[in-house]
């Protein structure tokens, strides 16, 4: 057998790298960072998050602070969402688009104070986002402070997240709603605690200064393990987000896709005041409709659809698979794919070209998995 993977070459390390290796993690290079892909088994880690709790090192992600008296207005001109509509202590999913409407990154924007926002970017795009924000904020009174390398980020995800985090923090978790953020202490460390995540489960993301990340991780891991949970690597992070129907930049999103293609037009606030980068192009897409549509597929034959595999309807090529795996929760192969809008209705049968053969698949609504409580 031979691995069709890509060569590895390590660059940045998070403050937790030696802990991951002591836990037996297999480390890979991801977006310029040495990260754990799995500690024990992707399936076991996936199930731990769905059924109990998992702990993730996300210190590779970018954290960009935008502050100043006009921070909200300035940020509103830079991203497609409406940061000014956020109450302090609330967050929104957002995107940074190019002038042609193509997605440069998907983001979460947190309003930490009236005049202070935190933008969390994907590791692979952190520099692109930092550079674009610097350019777009130039000439405004808002100031950009790239805190990516000064910030540690650890996520607790799964139904037992409150049990794990509650005893370690003075933040009122019961009062912290989904997409809320609060300042407090976790294990005695000054932190921002957000009720956000990328798994489809309840959970929290904890931001601390980078030097305290190891201490934070140790305290959380002890409680996660006591709750029968596991540390979780990027492998299960990917299968969890895919089941939850969440896009991954580089797969579902890139500079050739608009938010509307990805079914995320609701993120674009065309009704907000003022211009923003990409507005004219996105208004046209909103009016004309996107040229393709992101759909969920369940594979009904034998085989697993993977990124890049063609999708056909009879003899007509309709699109391409963006992500696919065997769903640990559903026990069947699932995928996301772009198809022609006319082929995107749930129930439509398509074929995925897998190696030399064609395997039937059904268009299904996203997400594949939604938690019951």
């Amino acid at each position, binding site marked *: 057998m031979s691995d069709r993977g890509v060569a590895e070459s390590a660059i940045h390390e998070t403050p937790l790298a030696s802990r991951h290796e002591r836990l037996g993690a297999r480390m890979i290079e991801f977006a310029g960072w040495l990260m754990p892909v799995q500690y024990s088994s*992707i399936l076991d880690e996936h199930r731990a998050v769905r059924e109990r709790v998992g702990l993730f090192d996300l210190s590779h992600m970018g954290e960009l602070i935008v502050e100043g008296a006009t921070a909200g207005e300035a940020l509103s001109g830079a991203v497609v969402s409406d940061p000014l509509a956020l109450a302090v202590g609330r967050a929104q999913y957002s995107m940074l688009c190019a002038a042609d409407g193509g997605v440069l990154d998907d983001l979460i924007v947190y309003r930490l104070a009236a005049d202070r926002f935190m933008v969390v970017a994907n590791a692979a795009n952190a520099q692109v986002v930092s550079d674009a924000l610097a350019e777009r904020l130039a000439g405004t009174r808002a100031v950009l402070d790239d805190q990516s390398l000064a910030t540690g980020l650890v996520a607790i995800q799964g139904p037992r997240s409150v049990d794990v985090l509650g005893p370690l923090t003075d933040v009122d978790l019961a009062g912290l709603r989904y997409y809320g953020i609060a300042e407090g202490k976790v294990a005695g460390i000054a932190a921002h605690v957000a009720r956000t995540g990328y798994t489809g489960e309840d959970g929290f993301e904890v931001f601390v200064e980078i030097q305290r990340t190891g201490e934070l991780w140790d305290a959380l891991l002890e409680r996660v393990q006591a709750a029968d949970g596991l540390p979780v690597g990027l492998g299960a992070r990917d299968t969890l987000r895919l089941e939850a129907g969440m896009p991954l930049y580089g797969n579902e999103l890139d500079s050739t896709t608009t938010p509307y293609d990805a079914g995320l037009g609701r993120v674009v606030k065309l009704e907000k005041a003022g211009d923003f980068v990409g507005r004219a192009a996105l208004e046209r897409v909103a009016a004309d409709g996107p040229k393709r549509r992101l759909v969920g597929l369940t594979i009904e034959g034998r085989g*697993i659809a993977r990124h890049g595999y063609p999708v056909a309807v009879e003899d007509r090529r309709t699109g391409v698979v963006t992500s696919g795996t065997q769903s640990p929760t559903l026990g069947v192969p699932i995928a996301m794919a772009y198809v022609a809008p006319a082929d995107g209705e749930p129930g439509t049968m398509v074929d995925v070209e897998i190696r030399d053969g064609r395997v039937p698949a059904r268009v299904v609504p996203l997400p594949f998995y939604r938690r019951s409580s």
Partner: protein
Amino acid sequence: MSAPTDLRYTRDHEWVRVDGDEATVGITQYAADQLGDIVFVELPEAGRDLEEAKSFGVVESVKAVSDLFAPISGEVTSTNDALASEPELVNRDPYGAGWMVRMTVADPAQLDDLLDGDGYDELVAAS
């Protein structure tokens, strides 16, 4: 962890067990561990002729797709149907219940090109 000494190995991490004029083929423990949780195995039909070093199937883990290469030439006589519903057998018992195909040995001289257990252990240690 040493590779069983009664098997022969390819540099691509397949193993071969020769029994009379038939050979059984699978992937090694090292290969299974490297792949992680195996969720899909695609094998040829019985009757198909395999050619040494050519791809004859695919094994997929949650994350990765890998080709299987024929360690020797010969005709497939049977395949492990259990792997269709229980691909995890490859992780759990790669040298036993996780076997993949049985085949004829078209050219016994090809077996001499394969590694023995010690040779395979050295290969793994060096990788």
